[in-house]
């Protein structure tokens, strides 16, 4: 598709925003997941991504229904509970030139899917892995998930007496290469982080607190809108500058107050210092900062860790760059007849 100049109604590749939309959502009105779906649509539109060059994946749960509600022109696979990472891993080899967005939930990732979550980080699959985190099972009507805080009280379940699993700490301990936390109520940050994640050549974990308005939205719950709004603390003012645009750093910020990070495709992440200068390259410090925020009851958001040096899964497999595996034919895939005689001679 030839690049066109945007006329305000279309993006640079001539698509209207509606061409990035999906089916009508069947999630509850006010669900945080719908807001995230909207930011996925906006990020892909603004990045001028051809929808056919995205593949969507999900597991099972409310969150995992949402890929049906964005990017209708993209292929998608709604897989099994907790096992989206394995399907995405296998499918990624079909055509490694494509980008992939996966949506999971806190139950899907931290309960049934904790094993696959850890292993997909080991492999550094090129995938935007979104955890729509609300601390509760929605489709089965309000049971605790493993990210629910200790002491949380739910209508039919009583009090949660177990310690929560922290998605970000799990990702940090697994040395995932892109780790961010956000809040569905902070649409701008969600969108900017999504754009950055989409340009990352590896696994990008986005743990997004996405309130469940039906089962877990009381103000004292750590996954509610009220709590998020009151306790969100941004690590930095984060913005994504695509490679086509010049980086404009606001003159009023003193020197040294801005970090810039160049991504593989030439785009830039601009991190403006807020309370302190935070270096997302320092994993050890990230663990300390996240642990401290957890203890202080703060919802710390932003790009928590980034490592652009490690090779993605596809790169580790020495595949041809010029043509996808799924377009290869018998000519390339079936060894010549003469090779079989040599093989038979070896069989004794």
């Amino acid at each position, binding site marked *: 598709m030839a690049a066109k100049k945007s006329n305000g109604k279309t993006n640079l590749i001539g698509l209207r925003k509606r061409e990035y939309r999906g089916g009508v959502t069947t999630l509850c009105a006010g669900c945080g997941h719908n807001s995230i779906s909207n930011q996925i649509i906006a990020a892909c539109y603004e990045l001028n991504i051809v929808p056919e060059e995205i593949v969507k994946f999900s597991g099972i749960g409310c969150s995992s229904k949402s890929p049906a509600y964005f990017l209708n022109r993209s292929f998608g696979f709604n897989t099994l509970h907790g096992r989206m990472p394995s399907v995405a*891993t296998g499918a990624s080899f*079909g*055509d490694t030139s494509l980008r992939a967005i996966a949506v999971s939930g806190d139950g899907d990732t931290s309960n049934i899917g904790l094993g696959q979550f850890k292993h997909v980080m080991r492999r550094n699959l090129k995938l935007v892995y979104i955890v729509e985190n609300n601390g509760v099972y929605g489709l089965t009507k309000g049971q605790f998930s493993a990210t629910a805080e200790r002491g949380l009280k739910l209508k039919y379940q009583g009090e949660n007496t177990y310690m929560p699993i922290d998605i970000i700490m799990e990702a940090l301990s697994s040395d995932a290469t892109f780790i961010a936390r956000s809040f569905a109520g902070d649409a701008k940050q969600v969108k900017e982080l999504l754009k950055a994640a989409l340009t990352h050549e590896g696994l990008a974990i986005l743990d997004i607190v996405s309130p469940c308005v039906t089962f877990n939205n009381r103000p004292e719950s750590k996954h509610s809108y009220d709590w998020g709004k009151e306790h969100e603390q941004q690590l930095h003012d984060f913005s994504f500058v695509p490679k086509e645009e010049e980086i404009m750093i606001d003159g009023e910020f003193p020197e040294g107050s801005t970090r810039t990070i160049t991504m593989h495709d030439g785009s830039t992440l601009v991190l403006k210092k807020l309370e302190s200068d935070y270096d997302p390259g320092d994993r050890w410090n990230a663990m300390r900062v996240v642990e401290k925020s957890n203890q202080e009851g703060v919802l710390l958001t932003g790009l928590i860790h980034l490592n652009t040096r490690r090779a993605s899964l596809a790169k580790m497999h020495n*595949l041809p760059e010029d043509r996808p*595996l*799924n377009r290869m034919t018998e000519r390339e895939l079936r060894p010549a007849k003469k090779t079989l005689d040599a*093989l038979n001679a070896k069989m004794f």
Partner: protein
Amino acid sequence: MTIVKTKTQKTPVGVKRVVNDFSFTIATMNGSGSQTSNLLLLRALFKMGIPVSGKNLFPSNIQGLPTWYTIRVSKDGYIARRDETEIVVALNKDTFVEDLEKVVPGGAFYYADHLKFNIQRDDITMYPMPVLKLVKESGAPTALRDYVANMVYVGSLAGMMGIDMDKIKLALEFHFGGRQKPIDLNFGLIQAAAEWAVDNLEKQDPFYVEPMDATDGLILADGNTSAALGSIYGGVQFLSWYPITPASSLPEALIHNISDLRDDPETGEKNYAIIQAEDELAAIGMAVGAGWSGLRAITSTSGPGISLMTEFIGLAYFAEVPVVIWDVIRVGPSTGLPTRTSQGDLTMVNFLGHGDTQQIILLPGTANECFEFGWRAFDIAERHQTPVFVLSDLDLGMNQWMSEPFEYPDEPMDRGKIHWEGDMEKLQEKWGRYKDVDGDGIPYRTVIGNRHAASSWFARGTGHDEFAVYSEDSQVWEENMARLIRKYETARKSMPEPISENMRGAVIGILAFGSTAAAIDEARDYLKEAGIKTNSMRVRAIPFTAEVKQFLKKYDVVYVVELNRDGQMHQLLTLEYPEFAGKMVSLPKHDGMPLSASWVKEAVMAEEQK
């Protein structure tokens, strides 16, 4: 090649020679390196042109527990396991007494002379071997002594039975890939042992081998390696797997062989990817993902792994994703007998998944067929857009089998009904992922990377209509499920046909599948000698083809022989053909051992005499 001359024992006076028709068993400890020696013997006999088979009876253990390897030579070409053994080589003190008891009267017992047991049998010949002395004299480095010690029995047996030293050398060269140092060390010891035996032991048993020409043009291969090679010729593009006995050697053989056959010789680029997954849940998940993305995907496992894969198989069946699953069966339920053979996963796999599911199953019975189904399974999976299972077993998968050589695929790859951009352009009406355009139940699919704006679809395990859109509509559900059965019936028409062996005037049928074929062929000869003529059918696929029904119809009684407790093939046949249920007789055996002809003969005779 230099001709290696070694003396062999002369036939004792008054003894009638038994040539190329006996079994010998080597009793060692697991992890002692005896597998190298055992395979040397097997290969040397094969290269002498003598029909031969080898069965490894091993424990679930890395080192220390007893293990037995039985080699059968058969001038008549029988390669099934026998219950009797004429010769035993005893190197394991823990099993010395029971090993001595195993030898049939008139047989021979070789033993390492440092195993001190004050037991004798006067109905067999006892041959002590000075293992430690010969090893010491060989000059082998101390660290290698335990391993090369096994060469003493190779040499002793060779000298006493008449195994051709040239062929042993050939087998050594093959085993060590031409590396001269280990070849020389081992061969020196084998020669020394052979000479010692000829000079010092007095041959009294009648068992000899002599060259034949009955293995010309044949190969010796295990089923797992054959399956791996067949998959490579089938264009495998993605393998995900998790280690489990007895399936692990399938992916390992694939990894070992694929680079030479498939990597770009100039760039080293690969047109496939292999991942050892974290468990079977992930192994099948990856394979399903790869199959959905348009790759020829495979995974291999055994019963416990199949259990873990079940939910994904249901998804792949319903979302219609091609994927190939090899189940190399071991004895279950549970961890069961993990190093023993079985055909016990048949009904589980046939109905694998929750709700209404019926799976396509291929049933190879020879190494050559493992190769063929290795490539053919991908064609069937992609043609029918569904999981295809290949059921092998420990005996077929891990033991060496004499077989016809691998044949190059006689058909071009069948990638099935797949639309790319150009195909989408030409369509007259709206494409639907699950639309039965041709009336055969098989829709057209598209895969990721297709840039046509109408090519995408959302795969799901939930109810969906012809356009892959979520639906809870009852009629839509029923129609879709009916189409899946239509697809299964389409598959029935192109399944590999069964193989029949006939005798004139037979009124009895024997039906079986898989690795039991050798025992059944042999048993039929014995039954014929006993006056019972039989025809046999080896089923090679489910859904059953029309020939299976014809076979059941034709005979007064059909014995269904298989390696499991419940007679699972008998169960499936009874379900499918209730009209013939009355004449089918189930003959199941589930002792974990490869089937023997004598058991089949006795079981049929017992029924016939009722």
